[in-house]
């Protein structure tokens, strides 16, 4: 008998579910922007500029908003099937191109933040949980707790005032000043550090809690009685189990990496995906909004699949049961 990898079986079982969720999401991301109050056409110009009715009508037709909703949806689905996300009259360009150019810059600061945040969270959280009585463990946990109960924009603005305004270490805004590696590093360090502190502190709290639980279970006690060093127990046995709840969260972080971090972008004046989507919401830019939500949806679904597969690989208990 041919042995199929458990991940293969898993995927084939879940395919239908993911397809169905995708269709629902397609419908939601199409409808939600259109249900919001406000008119994308009249918002195309400034608030003190007058548009005549005939101009508004012709723009509405150009936007493809002059037909009934279900026809718009069908046309939208056909477009998607051809890989076309539409054209944004607010941003003056094809949605796909705009998303790519913005997403690239967003990824430059979100990916390192998630990875470093996960790494710090897992390693520090595991140690802090394992040696919970020590003073440094408490300090780490306290800092993590304070950071995760502070509004992100408050922390970002405080970082801006402290490190940029008072200490003059970093610049005020933008991804770069002149387009070169040095300038990009100079500009992105602070936003990335702030974002890392958010991811890391959340991961530390979860990881620490999980390790604390695992540590008191039978198997580490058993390992201890076998004379396995504490360090080995933590890294080879406990961490593997404690990490499972965190995997789902980190996978989700990756799923949402495209949406960027709105507050970081507002505070450090970065034109990334977060502010693109926020502007699209405020301007009722349907194509951009629908397009970016759709891409995020695809990433989140992929992230979920990956998380499921990874916990399958890490945790033999789940693997055997399915």
């Amino acid at each position, binding site marked *: 008998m041919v042995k199929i990898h458990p991940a293969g079986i898993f995927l084939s079982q879940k395919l239908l579910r993911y397809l169905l969720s995708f269709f629902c999401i397609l419908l939601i991301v199409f409808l939600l922007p259109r249900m919001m109050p*406000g008119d994308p056409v009249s918002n195309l110009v400034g608030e003190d500029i007058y548009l005549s009715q005939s101009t508004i009508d012709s723009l509405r037709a150009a936007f493809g908003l002059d037909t009934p909703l279900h026809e718009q949806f069908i046309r939208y689905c056909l477009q998607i099937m051809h890989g076309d996300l539409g054209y944004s009259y607010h*941003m003056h360009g094809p949605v796909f191109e705009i998303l790519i150019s913005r997403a690239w810059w967003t990824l430059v600061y979100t990916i390192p933040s998630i990875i470093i945040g996960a790494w710090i969270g897992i390693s520090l959280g595991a140690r802090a949980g394992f040696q919970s009585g020590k003073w440094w463990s408490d300090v780490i946990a306290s800092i993590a707790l304070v950071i995760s109960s502070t509004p992100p924009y408050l922390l970002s603005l405080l970082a801006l005032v402290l490190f940029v305004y008072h200490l003059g270490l970093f610049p005020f805004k933008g991804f770069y000043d002149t387009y070169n590696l040095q300038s990009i590093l100079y500009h992105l360090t602070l936003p990335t550090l702030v974002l890392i502190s958010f991811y890391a502190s959340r991961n530390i709290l979860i990881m620490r809690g999980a390790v604390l639980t695992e540590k008191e279970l039978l198997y580490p006690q058993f390992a201890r009685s076998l004379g396995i060093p504490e360090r080995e127990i933590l890294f080879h046995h406990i961490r593997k189990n404690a990490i499972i709840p965190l995997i789902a969260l980190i996978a989700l972080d990756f799923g949402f990496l495209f949406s960027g971090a709105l507050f970081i972008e507002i505070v450090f004046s*970065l034109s990334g995906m977060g502010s693109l989507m926020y502007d699209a919401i405020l301007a009722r830019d349907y194509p951009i909004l629908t397009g970016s939500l759709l891409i995020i949806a695809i990433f989140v679904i992929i992230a979920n699949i990956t998380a499921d597969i990874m916990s399958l690989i890490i945790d033999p208990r789940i693997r055997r049961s399915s």
Partner: protein
Amino acid sequence: MRKSQHKMCTLLFLILSIVSVCCSMGVMADDAILRIATTNDVKSPAFIGDYTLGLFNHLSNPPLMQMDENGKLIGLLADHYEVSPDNTEWSFVIKDNQFWSDGTPVTADDVAFSIQMYGTSIPNAGWIGETLTDTQVDGNKVTFKFNKPYTNLALEFTSYSILPKHIWESIENPNEFTSTGPYVGAGPYYLDNVDLNAGKVIFKRNPSWKGKISDYDTVEISWFKNEDAAAKALESGVMDTYWKYASSYPYAAIDSLTKTGNFEMLEKPTSGLTFLGFNLKREPMSDPAFREAVSSAINYQELVDISTLGYGKVPNRGFVPPAMDGYIQTKPMEYNLETARKTLDSAGYKDSDGNGIIEAADGKDITLDLLIRNSYAREAELMKEYLEKAGIGVEVRSVEDNTWFEMKDKLDYDITLTRTTPWGMLMHAGWATGYFDSRRTGQGVLHTVDDEVFLKLCDDILSTTDQTLLKEYAKEVQEYYAENLPGIPLYWKNDITPYNKKITGWYSNPLYGIMNEFTFTGVKSSA
């Protein structure tokens, strides 16, 4: 395991040290750059299509007309203009000795092309396309013929940037055209680069410019996504000035900026204002006595103190602020709670059930639905307090701008708080008529007044260019506001523009503040 973590730590340390080296190198300052901070952000590198870029590009592609510091229209690209007696034929004579940054001279052809192009391809200039029947070029004179009279064309033409025909005629859809630059321009500077990632627009000196020049080879406009960061950037000295369309530098930030000792403030009264609008289609707002009572219930001095921190003044009943041409003195708004109560009482709004809230004719409590744009939360809070003191119940609904546009168009409110912009004060028949005339709809306007007297006044203004007549009409409009109170001005304010002390030669006009050619040909560095 431990080893690998040590490695990682070393790596992190290395990265950090590289970064700090970068930091120390990044602080090099270049003095030949004039740096302007703004919170108007460019969303797309579309020269004409992007709203904010369309404001900035007046610097590189001057419109035909501009305003002087007193609000009078003077020529910019045009030397002067003539208008036919029936106001349908407008001729603009282009100034000599103006050149595009690629060396070619600016011609009347460029002007004709640009205006026609706006009419056919730019949505917000649709009116040109609908009414412009003929364009003729004769030497350096261009004549536009319209199928109906226009009286404020010279004013309209302060906002349309003139483009080089030889570049733009090959561009199929100018409104959707995007490029990060450079763009050929005829102003003292041309637009060199729009960099969304760096968050700035860079203007370079136009090599063919023949007029006066400033001390700066480069003008950089940096946009910030929040006021706090912009203010801090100014305080730290990395920016020379701050500009935002139709807005002042945040009043709350002035003190700490002055304290740095490096900035001076340019204070100019503006024609934009914040006002309380009534839904005149609903009871009891349609009752003049009710509006009168509301106007007496508002503590104007406190509003001035809180909202403008004293950089404003109590408005007059005539709505139109003194910064506008044609302003007349009317009675100032007056806060008197007793008068408010008495006015309500004598108009038949009485609190007969003693619950502190007056009742309408049908016996129900009057609780007004105050719909606000979310930036007026503070004013709304005060308004609720003031009106409740006078016995009028208020429920505040705060929505973001676009929702507000839709709801006020549907007349789904009782009273609302909004603002006028300098341009908005001029649009339609001028003197804020555009905000009240019920025949106009769209974006920021309330279109609630359908009184024949008012509409006729608007039409009269729209049918003449005679300055003495216009002055008379302006007076009538303000008297109409003073008597009928279709909107209650809450405060008149001054726009504050901070500028680096070391730089002199700033010039400000009521329409675009310091963003004008006088500034960019006049600023001198005294450092």
